[in-house]
């Protein structure tokens, strides 16, 4: 069952990486990066199960939470830059 999550995470990473490289539109690339992030977070969270104990390891959860905060702030900066760029072009 755990393999399902690993395969899902790897698929997400590969698909989003492909779209990040192919896309020319800034918004599309930003979305691709966010999906890439989700894939990485899913992978990280899944490793928490791997400790052969009853309860999952809390450290990956804390680290992923920090990772999400960083990803959200980066997305906010990217969106505001894209908005500025569109304003300049008008």
């Amino acid at each position, binding site marked *: 069952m755990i393999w399902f999550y690993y395969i899902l995470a790897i698929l997400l*990473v590969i698909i989003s990486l492909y779209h*990040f490289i192919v896309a020319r539109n*800034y918004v599309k*690339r*930003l979305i691709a*990066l966010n999906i*890439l*992030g989700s894939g*990485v977070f899913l*992978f*990280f969270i899944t*490793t928490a199960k*791997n*400790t052969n104990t009853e309860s999952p390891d809390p*450290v*990956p959860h804390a*680290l992923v939470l*920090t*990772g999400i905060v*960083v*990803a959200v*702030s*980066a997305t906010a*900066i*990217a969106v505001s*830059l*894209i908005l*500025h*760029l569109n304003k*300049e*072009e008008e």
Partner: protein
Amino acid sequence: MISFDLGYLIVLPLLASIFSLISPIRVYIALAFSLLSFLLSVYSFLYTLRDNTPLYQWIGGWTPPLGIGLRLDGLSGFFLLMIGIVSLFVALYSISFFNVEYKRQGRFFWFFFFFLWAGLNAFFLSEDLFNLYVALEVLSLTAVILVALPGYKKAIKASLNYLFLSILASMFYLLGIAMLYANYGVLSMSLLSQKLSDTQEFIYALFPITIALAIKSALLPFHFWLPPAHSSTVAPASALLSSLVIKPPAYLMLRLWMEVLPKDKSLEYLSIVLSIMGALAIFIGSYYAIRQKTIKRLLAYSTVAQMGYLFIMVPLYYHGEILKEAVLQAFALQVFSHALAKASMFLSSGNAIYVAKRDELSYMPGFAHSHPFTFFALFFSGATLIGLPLSAGFVAKFLFLELSIKLGFFLHGGIMLLGSLLASLYVYPIWKECFSSHPTKFYDKPIPQLMEISAFLLGFLAFSSGMITGFLLEGIARG
């Protein structure tokens, strides 16, 4: 010497960044806090000179894995000093710069300036791979905003591309961390180094981490974001980006190769690949630097070439265990000399653009006639980039050459000498234009004194610190 709380090195710039955003007297706050943070950096450097053992501290008394550990040793103390010197002089320059140009941007510059300083200090003090990730993100996001600071289309496009690659790199890095944590259950570098020996799994984690660090430090196939990003923003921001922001990933690479990774056959191949990329970075970066017609793009490509030196030496980090202190010294001095020299050059390019209002090399004012301080800044920093004798750049290259001969890497030493020659080819056009006295290119417009003096002092320090390297590197020699 009295021990102190390492957290102040991070908290002080953070406080300054908040105060400078909300207070109307932001210039005085910037000046006061820059001086304070600089003095604290100098104090921590002197502390590493006096004290033999690294200083470990757990913030708030919480021990890992929950708490955050800080470490101060000879190498990080030396880099704290470097950050302090460059930031102080960039701050002095910026006080004057934003007074005469880009007044609107000056209101926000200080916030990001101090945030960057806090991120840099945090990076060099952490020894946990995840804290390093957080510090690296603080650095990258601040750097992205500094690129977009001028607000015109070219700068925003450059900063968006930089941001996208930066997010990509950070995701790769996080992936590597996840793999390491899943296999070994620790992220502290000292604990990892004990657990890694006689295992194989770390190799898979090393690939995403290496790619992430290569993107962030603009190693050759991933260098394309750097020239537009570093050349399209205002001079003080360019100086910070090019001299300080791209160094931390290379430093992490050195720590990993010297202190964490065990000996393994496949690592030897990886070290060769990295050194080939470094060599290509020296050649291709220098080639493009020689061909540039504008001063800021020239300097940006020269940064690509100079970063190549840090990667061409990866096999030395791998094989240099017996000469560990010497390898660390050579690395530290190369980073130090490039940081000071490149900051001085970018600040001087700001002076040139202030006078000429354009950044083509052929429009550069004849500084040797009109503004001797800026001329000497360009002269000293250029000499350091090339590695002319007596300069810090010379001592760094000499140490590297000595190491590569001792360890039998003659080709690496030879490529480095060739890189020096190429550096002289791209520094020469800048010097040449300093002596041009064609009437249409001769500008007499006075430059604010603070802008000239701070650029000059940085260049002078970059050059003259070559003569006191014994003192500067003493802390690293003791380990």
